[in-house]
């Protein structure tokens, strides 16, 4: 067997893989979901599925914030950007996400100004330097990026910068995991828990997965060995009949998370009653908006936002991919009409999207690498 991309610890990986194989019960199949898009990226970059027994399938979860944003929110952002005097800022990952009438680049060709920034603090600086413009930051992301937006709101308030606001699209991972657990489409045996999100929220929020759903979850680091080690820990739990929350990434993730980050989120934002996720539909209490005390920084209150729901393009099956029901290559347009250069769906846009990860690393079926390389 050939491995897609040898990495420096390939021998250790093989040793772990054989321990994992030793835990497989004959005739049983195992499905584990890696929640985080960063993990998906590692799995395909390093061809980790090739190390695993056929009985183990990795299912890619909804943990790519760019992938789960519905088209209507892109349209809303562009509509805000069209207001006279508005200068919108956005992370680079968002720029090519298609709305119903094109993406941010297309919109800029028609007289909006949507500028890429690395940090919300860059956005705040642009506001400081351009007092004649209304700067709106397109805020997006899970708990990993939410504290940064929260800190920026607090800074804007402290400095009294009033030509700055945020279009808040921050989402929370726990309700999405619960939605997947409640979905009848998919039977999972356990979860590879997100690494960076957990540095903020800690490990306790996952307790319900083990306690109420009886599934093991292991919070994992991002290196290939971290992921294999986590799969080994999941398999060991299953073999011993346990369902617990375990932390493989304890060298970075504290069990209690980052209390300061949680506090600033809570100080500046509050849960929305519901929010639409691409592929998963409306999920209760799954997203944040700016808290009333900071309403002057809320772009949704400052501008008329159409808020129109837009159905995904018919050909696009991102929804099924995001729920883990379809593998990327099973989508009808994967690699043909939909490529990273001309994405139809969001999963092909972000490098963390499952489709882009598959496409970029030449993975068009699970078995292709084996077939091509086994003599």
């Amino acid at each position: 067997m050939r491995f897609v991309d040898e990495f420096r610890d390939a021998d250790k990986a093989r040793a772990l893989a054989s321990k994992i194989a030793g835990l497989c019960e004959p005739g049983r199949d195992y499905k584990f979901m890696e929640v985080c898009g960063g993990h998906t990226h590692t799995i395909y970059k390093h061809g980790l599925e090739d190390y695993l027994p056929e009985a183990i399938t990795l299912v890619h979860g909804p943990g790519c914030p760019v992938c789960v944003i519905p088209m209507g929110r892109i349209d809303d952002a562009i509509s805000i950007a069209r207001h006279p005097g508005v200068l919108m800022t956005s992370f680079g990952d968002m720029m090519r996400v298609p709305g119903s009438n094109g993406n941010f680049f297309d919109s800029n060709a028609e007289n909006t100004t949507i500028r890429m920034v690395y940090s919300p603090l860059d956005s705040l600086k642009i506001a400081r330097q351009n007092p004649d413009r209304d700067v709106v930051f397109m805020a997006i992301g899970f708990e990993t990026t939410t504290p940064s937006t929260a800190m920026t709101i607090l800074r804007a308030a402290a400095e009294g910068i009033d030509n700055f606001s945020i279009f808040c699209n921050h989402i929370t991972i726990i309700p999405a995991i619960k939605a997947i657990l409640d979905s009848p489409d998919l039977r999972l045996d356990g979860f590879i828990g997100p690494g960076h999100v957990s540095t903020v929220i800690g490990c306790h929020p996952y307790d319900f997965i083990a306690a109420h759903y009886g599934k093991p979850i292991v919070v994992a680091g991002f290196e290939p060995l971290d992921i294999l080690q986590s799969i080994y820990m999941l398999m060991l739990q299953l073999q011993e009949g346990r369902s617990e929350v375990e932390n493989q990434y304890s060298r970075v993730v504290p069990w209690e998370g980052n209390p300061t980050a949680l506090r600033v989120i809570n100080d500046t934002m509050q849960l929305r009653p519901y929010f639409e996720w691409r592929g998963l539909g409306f999920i209760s209490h799954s997203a944040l908006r700016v808290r009333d005390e900071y309403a002057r920084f809320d772009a949704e209150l400052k501008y008329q936002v159409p808020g129109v729901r837009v159905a995904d393009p018919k050909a696009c099956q991102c929804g099924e991919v995001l729920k883990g029901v379809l593998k990327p290559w099973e989508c009808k347009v994967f690699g043909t009409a939909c490529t990273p250069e001309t994405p139809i769906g969001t999963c092909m846009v972000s490098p963390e999207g499952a489709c882009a990860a598959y496409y970029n690393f030449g993975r068009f079926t699970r078995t292709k690498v084996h077939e091509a390389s086994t003599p």
Partner: protein
Amino acid sequence: MCLGIPGEVIEILTDRPDLARVDVSGVTRAINIGLVADDGIAPGDWVLIHVGFALSKIDEAEAKAAMDFLESIGKAYDDEIAALRESHIL
């Protein structure tokens, strides 16, 4: 945007103790350290940076391992460093 990038703290800004100058793969930029203030950040410490904010303090071995990993994933990391290079929060 979701990548955590390790950076070494060079100095804490005297007039803005919530900001620090860090070195990330040879790129020196100011970042916010307010979210890890309780960890007592000092020059020489390593932090994991997300969109201009240190989110956790890590040890040097973890920083090196994280950097090796990021370099191995290629374009996504290059894009993140290119974005960081354009970041001037001060």
